[in-house]
């Protein structure tokens, strides 16, 4: 295969910036470190009160960043963060009472308690959607505050309680010392979040947020991804709670109100919830500036409320989103020419020829691939799917042998996509069963499919808005990343190896589908035909053993459609995959498949090699209205 992009620089790295800084891996960490050191250096001239304000900003930066993980990446807003902060605060007080440890023990307790509460409040997401979960976080916030009020032996009830002075490994710290501790804790927390966000886990959260359907077809469990994000977010807020307790000295349950929860969310959104450093900007704006200026008085809340609403309406990306957009537009790495569309490969004819040859070979020995390494078979046995009173799929059986390319055709409403959705686990079965290879599928467990090697594309494109083509290709390999969260956070060798391998595979697939020049383009800026390719690329990049293509040529010109289907089928032969092709372009289907299954009104009306189906009376009738 000679893709048009081969030989040229394949990634956008070559365009992005020319200085040493731009090429340095982890330059974001370096910049963050410089920022922290600047604050550290400047801390000497701060008055006690100013040091206090800076510490508060640092604390709210951590909390804002926890929303970056939960809301910015995983798409789940929470108005329960005051409860998590309170949990960290009272964990601090409990540890200082019952144990000899200082902040070293309190931080561990705060993180553990915060993470646990986060996970528990996240658990309902296994059953309910994100809006209802947001309501549940509201409930958490209110109930937690009531618990704090009632649990007066720990919290001092309505009167509040004094927090013992901060000690770390036996040394007691002044407010300025506490600022240094807070800076260190913030640095570690931000690094932790940054490492999680960059790599498999962050991509999964973004995928779940931007397209739940596609994410679950790629093996991500929507519920558990959110539970994880809640746990991480809770841990970050828990450790912020420890710092908060020592900074304000005196805490009472009134502090942990719904308003505080909302303020933390406001910080994240004003700053820009998609960027960790946005949390710092938000915290400076909301907590730092008014305290430093001390001029706005009671108007301060009105002002930041108005700013918040204005940002929601006009700049949903927040400060950081705006700065990032300006940087892209005017910064040193700005794009000089924007490639509008990909060219149709001159290889289209070659692809077609190769395909015809392959098809001929398989048609001659239809079962030849059955025993070999051609992919995984699919058994559909008497499957019924009903929506209310309407039976969309009514007793369909089909045996799809490994390595074959099977066309699934039929008029609109015949049940093709419904059948595909049943295989994907998006709809439940009213009867029958579906097996991939030897494994009978469990209904409504879409994420199980990917583990069995099933990949699919979507008729109505299910792309991840705001993410680049390369992101899509990496997201497509979620299930085969080969490393866990621990490796990712600590950047251990399995992570490095896995990322390198996935990146190479992404480039290879991009070249195969003619996307190599567009890796750094955001998908919403691409033409429809190109988006279609990205959707296909995401499905094939992890080399599924059974590939379900839902109308890949729909909406494309005949040439584009031929080209795309041709490229995918060649790739599938190459890596060994069974293909089920749902497509309205009958000529295309007849040309490239080994077998055609035709549906009408939810039943199979024809099932044979293309040439036989083509001449079958009821097939012709269903299609041409005989």
């Amino acid at each position, binding site marked *: 295969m000679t893709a048009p992009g081969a030989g040229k620089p394949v990634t956008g790295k070559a365009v992005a910036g020319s200085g040493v800084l731009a090429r340095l891996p982890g330059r974001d960490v370096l910049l963050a470190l410089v920022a922290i050191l600047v604050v550290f250096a400047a801390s000497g001239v701060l008055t006690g009160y100013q040091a206090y304000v800076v510490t508060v900003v640092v604390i709210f930066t951590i909390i804002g960043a926890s929303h970056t993980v939960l809301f910015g990446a995983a798409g789940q*807003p929470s*108005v329960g963060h005051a409860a998590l902060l309170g949990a960290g605060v009272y964990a601090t007080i409990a540890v200082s009472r019952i144990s000899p440890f200082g902040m070293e023990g309190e931080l561990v307790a705060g993180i553990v308690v915060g993470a646990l509460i986060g996970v528990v409040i996240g658990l*309902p997401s296994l*059953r*309910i*959607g*994100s*809006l*209802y979960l*947001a*309501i*549940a976080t*509201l*409930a*958490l916030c*209110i*109930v937690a505050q*009531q618990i704090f009020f*009632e649990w007066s032996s720990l919290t001092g009830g309505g009167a509040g309680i004094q927090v013992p002075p901060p000690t770390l490994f036996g040394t007691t710290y002044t407010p300025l010392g506490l600022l240094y501790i807070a800076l260190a804790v913030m640095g570690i927390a931000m690094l932790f979040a940054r490492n999680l966000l960059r790599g498999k886990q962050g991509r999964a959260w973004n995928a779940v947020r931007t397209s739940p359907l596609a994410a679950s077809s790629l093996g991500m469990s929507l519920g558990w991804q959110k539970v994880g994000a809640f746990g991480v977010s809770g841990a970050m807020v828990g450790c912020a709670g420890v710092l908060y307790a020592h900074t304000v000295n005196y805490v009472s349950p009134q502090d942990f109100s*719904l*308003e505080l929860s*909302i303020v933390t*969310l*406001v910080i994240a*959104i004003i700053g820009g919830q998609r960027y960790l450093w946005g949390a710092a900007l938000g915290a400076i704006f909301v907590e730092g500036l008014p305290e430093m200026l001390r001029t706005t008085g*009671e*108007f301060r*809340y*009105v002002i*930041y*409320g*108005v700013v*918040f*609403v204005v940002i*929601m*309406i*006009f700049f*949903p990306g927040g400060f950081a989103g705006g700065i990032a957009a300006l940087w892209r537009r005017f910064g040193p790495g700005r794009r000089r020419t924007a490639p509008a569309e990909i060219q149709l490969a001159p290889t289209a004819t070659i692809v077609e020829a190769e395909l015809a040859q392959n098809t001929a070979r398989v048609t001659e020995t239809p079962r030849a691939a059955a025993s070999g390494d051609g992919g995984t078979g699919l058994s559909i046995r008497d499957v019924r799917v009903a929506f209310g009173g309407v039976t969309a799929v009514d007793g369909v059986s089909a045996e799809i042998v490994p390595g074959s390319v099977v066309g699934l055709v039929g008029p609109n409403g015949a049940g093709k996509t419904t059948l595909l959705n049943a295989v994907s686990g998006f709809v439940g079965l009213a009867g029958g069963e579906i097996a991939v290879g030897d494994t009978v599928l469990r209904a409504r467990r879409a994420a199980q499919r990917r583990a069995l090697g099933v990949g699919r594309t979507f008729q109505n494109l299910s792309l991840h808005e705001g993410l680049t083509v390369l992101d899509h290709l990496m997201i497509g390999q979620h299930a085969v990343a080969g490393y866990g969260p621990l490796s990712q956070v600590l950047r251990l060798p399995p992570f490095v190896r896995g990322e390198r391998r996935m990146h190479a595979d992404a480039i290879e697939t991009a070249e195969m589908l003619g996307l190599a020049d567009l890796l750094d383009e955001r998908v919403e800026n691409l033409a429809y035909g190109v988006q279609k390719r990205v959707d296909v690329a995401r499905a094939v990049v992890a080399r599924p053993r059974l590939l379900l293509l839902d109308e890949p040529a729909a909406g494309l010109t005949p040439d584009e459609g031929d080209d795309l289907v041709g490229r995918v089928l060649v790739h599938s032969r190459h890596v060994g995959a069974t293909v089920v092709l749902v497509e309205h372009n009958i000529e295309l289907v007849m040309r490239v498949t080994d077998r055609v299954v035709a549906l009408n009104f939810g039943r199979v009306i024809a099932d044979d090699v293309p040439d036989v189906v083509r001449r079958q009376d009821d097939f012709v009738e269903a299609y041409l209205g005989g």
Partner: protein
Amino acid sequence: MSAFLQAVVNGLMTGGVYALLALSIALIFKTMDAVNFATASMGAFCAFLFFQVGTILNLGWAAGLAVAVVGAVLLGWAVERGIVRPLGSGDLFRLVLATMGLDIVLNNATQIFFGSGVQNINAPLPSGGVGVAGINIDLTRLVILAVAVAGAIVLGVVLRCTNLGVGMRAYAQDPQAATLMGVPARTVSRWTWIISSLLGLVAAVMVASVSVLSVGFLQGTFISAFTAAVLGGLSSLPGAVAGGFILGVLEALSIAYAPRAVTIALPVLIILVVLLIRPAGLFGRLSASRA
């Protein structure tokens, strides 16, 4: 037995206000798919207008009512025009978050305009109580209940019998189809917010009549009303009314018979139980976009 009945009666009377505010929440949710977190502060702001003009400026109740109604209509209109419409449809959460911002603004604006003091209200409502079959019925609360029921009925009539109301219901079911059929989306959206704002005003005035007038005085009622709306299914108006009365009675019963902690945690328990067992509530339908 009479203690039980007394609790039920008390609960129904509290429930009326919950139902009214829950209607305000559910109406927005039904058409906009969003929870309006500024429900309480919008209502409270208008209640301040009512009482400030009425009592403090000594212009009489009628003038207060007129100012408050105009204020509520303008506020609803301004929110729709200034926030809801520019935000557009699309991201489900942006409107919810924007109402949180609005809540902050309104709460503090109320404080700046009207001060942070706590005022007792001498509402122009009958006071005292009457005994019926051993149950004491507080007249003020009875009037409040009557107003709440009347408000719900008026809303029902508007939604069923006017062109606007039918358009609103059609829009709530399927905005796109309704727009194609000639339902003016902007008018529907505008009036949804204005009516919701008026409901908030009535509920806020009722609550202030039996408690006090201070910044954020409606927050507690908002939580209860929100619980009632969740219980009724968030998008169902009859559900919101039923949820309001059910919550009022449950609350009164828990005050009479259960430990304090149960009463405090009641709204939250109800929200969690409803979300986990039947997220669609008693009357609602679960739409795919929210599932």
